């Protein structure tokens, strides 16, 4: 039981716990904070998997930009904690049951698989910024350009929707 395993377990627990907390916490602000915790946990995993670039981007983009945006919106609407009345219990129950059973089905299916490659943890330069950069601007230049269209449309959309008139 090496350090890696331990850290994996810790990070996993952290991720799952924060995820659950996010769902449970009444106050939107809290859930956002829990979500940020979740993101950090996942970044930890990335590091563990030796994907530094993604780890960083995850922190910057998600935990940084996106979550802040969320935070702004929530603050803007200042939804106080009690604004959300409890949903009827039966439906929640069904929801949890179905979600859980989905998880069970998938796990039971996947876990039955024999002989799969282990994850090569340390070493390998696939995740290094240098490699990724090169790949991104050579092999993946087309999707990269196309994603600009995505952003354009998102931008236009945000304007069309958000603009007061």
């Amino acid at each position, binding site marked *: 039981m090496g350090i890696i395993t331990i850290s994996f377990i810790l990070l996993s627990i952290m991720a799952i716990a924060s995820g659950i907390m996010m769902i449970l916490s009444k106050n939107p602000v809290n859930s956002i904070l829990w979500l940020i915790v979740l993101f950090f946990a996942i970044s930890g995993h990335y590091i563990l998997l030796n994907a530094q670039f993604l780890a960083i981007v995850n922190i910057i983009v998600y935990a940084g930009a996106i979550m802040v945006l969320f935070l702004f919106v929530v603050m803007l609407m200042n939804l106080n904690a009690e604004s959300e009345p409890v949903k009827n219990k039966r439906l929640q129950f069904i929801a949890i049951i179905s979600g859980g059973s989905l*998880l069970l089905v998938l796990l039971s299916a996947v876990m039955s698989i024999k002989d799969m490659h282990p*994850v090569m943890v340390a070493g390998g330069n696939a995740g290094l910024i240098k490699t990724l950069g090169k790949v991104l601007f050579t092999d993946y230049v087309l999707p990269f350009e196309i994603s600009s269209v995505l952003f354009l*449309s998102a931008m236009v959309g945000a304007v069309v929707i958000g603009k007061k008139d």
Partner: protein
Amino acid sequence: MDIKAYIALSLTLFSIGIVGVLTRRNAIIVFMCVEVMLNAVNLLLVAFSNMHAASATAKALPTFASDAQIFVFFIMIVAAAEVSVGLSIIVMLYRNTHSIDVNFLNRLKN
């Protein structure tokens, strides 16, 4: 480290996301749950990429395993775009009906 552990982890996160979508009524939080699902996927992809990195083909071309991580990168891009649009929609709705409770959205039914 066994890949199954990662699969289990990301599936769990994924289902947490789903359950969140199902149980919460606040549009923003529902949306955040979706983000959780995306992150689960990202994690899984990275894990897989490292798994493949161990395989024979990886030896042949060094950048082989990068594909998945690039993919993750694009997922993040899309997520960002979605967030901008989604939040603007939510704001618009909030402007018109001072609520973002998805259960109040039932003018359209049957």
